[in-house]
């Protein structure tokens, strides 16, 4: 299992590096899928097959698809790639990189200082998950429902596409102008 963990970790990290360096949105998203798959393998190696599956289905499946959908809808292709390419000069990433490396170093130092214990190589009983979900954490689950509702309501309102009107009575005039300019 250890090998599985290390290999999948390397895959996940490498794929993540690719995600943040690709110019093409779609490429990046595909690498992200790889990264998620890697993470799923890590979960597996940690004895959590259930979340590994969820990782693949929901993250790699649903959320990535949502992204791809938006990318396609907004037709982000070449233009955005060129723009990112221009942007990705050393001077733009070198500063943040140094800072993040410092943060990483600090985190690693604290983690290592925190000592270590061996993670037991056994799968957590799958039953326990739904039991605790619908047992002690039932309120959290219900709240999550509200969280999702908030997301949906919010997205529905924000995503609604409406022209800018100063006033509803001006709508028709503006439409007329719009029309005349077309013809």
């Amino acid at each position, binding site marked *: 299992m250890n090998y599985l963990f290390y290999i999948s970790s390397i895959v996940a990290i490498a794929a993540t590096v690719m995600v943040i360096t690709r110019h093409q949105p779609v490429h990046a998203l595909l690498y992200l899928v790889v990264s998620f798959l890697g993470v799923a393998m890590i979960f597996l190696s940690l004895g959590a097959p259930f979340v590994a599956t969820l990782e693949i289905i929901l993250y790699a499946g649903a959320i990535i698809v949502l992204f791809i959908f938006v990318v396609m809808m907004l037709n982000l292709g070449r233009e955005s790639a060129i723009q990112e390419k221009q942007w990705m000069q050393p001077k733009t990433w070198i500063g943040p990189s140094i800072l993040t490396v410092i943060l990483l170093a*600090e*985190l690693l130092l*604290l*983690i290592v*200082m*925190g000592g270590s214990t061996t993670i037991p190589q056994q799968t957590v009983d799958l039953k326990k998950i739904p039991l605790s979900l619908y047992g*002690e*954490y039932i*309120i*959290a689950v*219900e*709240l*999550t429902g*509200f*969280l999702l*509702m*908030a*997301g949906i*309501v*919010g*997205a*529905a*309102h*924000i995503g609604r596409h*409406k*022209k*800018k*009107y*100063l*006033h*509803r009575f001006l709508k028709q005039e503006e439409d007329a102008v719009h029309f005349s300019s077309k013809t």
Partner: protein
Amino acid sequence: MTHQQLMALLPFMELATASIVIILLIAFRQGHTIIQIIGFLMMCLVIFTMWYVRDVLPQAIMPLLIVDGYGALFTGLIIFCVLVVGLFSYIYFEEREENPREYYILIFLSTLGAAILTISRHFISFFIGLELLSVSLYALIAYLRTRNNAVEAGIKYLLLAALTSAFLLFGMALIYMDTGSMDFSIIAKKLDSSSPLFIAGFSLIMVAVGFKLALVPFHLWAADVYQGAPPPVASFIATVSKIGVFAVLLRFAQELHLQSNHSVMTIVSAIAILSMITGNILALRQQNIKRLLAYSSIAHFGYLLVAFLPGNSRGVEAAAFYLIAYAVTILIAFGVMILLSAKDKDADSLSVYRGLFWEKPFVAVVLSVALLSLAGIPLTAGFIGKFYVLMAGVEQQAWLPVIVLVVTSVIGLYYYLRIISTLFSDVAVVIQKEKSLHPFFYAASYAALVVLVMMLLGFGVVPSIIIPGIKQFLLIGN
């Protein structure tokens, strides 16, 4: 779940129900006014229920929540703020051509999130409450999406909130890894206070909390978001969201006795000092009232952290009182702003307020009182709040933060006085007589302002009317 636990949870359930009710109302195509009134009634119901169930408190709903006096106090405060915000929102949106219906759903949901924060005693409820609050806020901030910059403010808030949520989660994970539990009280038992993992985890959690409370150096969003958001939402962020997050932080600290942890206190003191300094300095020359209030709130939460430092009952009382005073004050400020806002432009530029006293003396005086309260001048609740905080700080002999508090308050005076002097300056702008508000709205908002100002002055002159109440509430469950 026992009957009593259900009773204790009743107010929160009502909050949740309220959002559903609104959805149903929307589904039945009810108008703004109906929604508003129903929402208002629901709020009143929540407060009433809270009063009603206070006898069964405290009730722990293991492992996630504990409804005790502390939670009830802060929830009550939150609900009160939402009540006022709701009233102002009604006025605000009635004037604008934007469909305000989803707005109320989101308001209720985020209130629910904040309320959950006040009673959570577990990382999961902490996290969910926070997210419920933030996700609703993303949409609320960008609610007037067609207006310039509302979307920009929304996306800024979203990106940073999500980022800091990740920090929060990572921090929680580290602590979980360290202690094997996400329950505050169990963490407290298992905690080795000098554990590096715990410190790292707490630091990361502080990022998220600091972000929500707009503490330096996680404060940069605040001004932009206040400016871009509709004033009622900005007031909501300034009050409800911050109260909720502060409540959970305080509970977390109390449960874990963080105040005795030297490194944690160093972190908090550093943040407090930085916030006080930065907030006040940033506000010095700001011409936009919304931004100015944002900066001042940065400073105020720095002050509040000074009350947080001692970790004794006086500190908690001080924090509670300060939050009450602050919330009332900020609501007045935003209320005035909403009242003065024109249809297509919020009254956020200082020039709108020039010579307001001679045009609308009542509003100007109200605003002045609020500003004096923010500045901590006697006769106002803000003074007692600041006094309380100082008292807590001095008692703990936290001299450095206390001195910084005093010095920065002096700096802060400058910009509050600047606004006041603008209000009283001579050159009165001819206020364009647009379509004035419906008389009812005027009456309602004036009444609200009067009540708020009475509270502000009442708490300021006779704080005894509220302090015993706070103490009593805080005693429940302790």
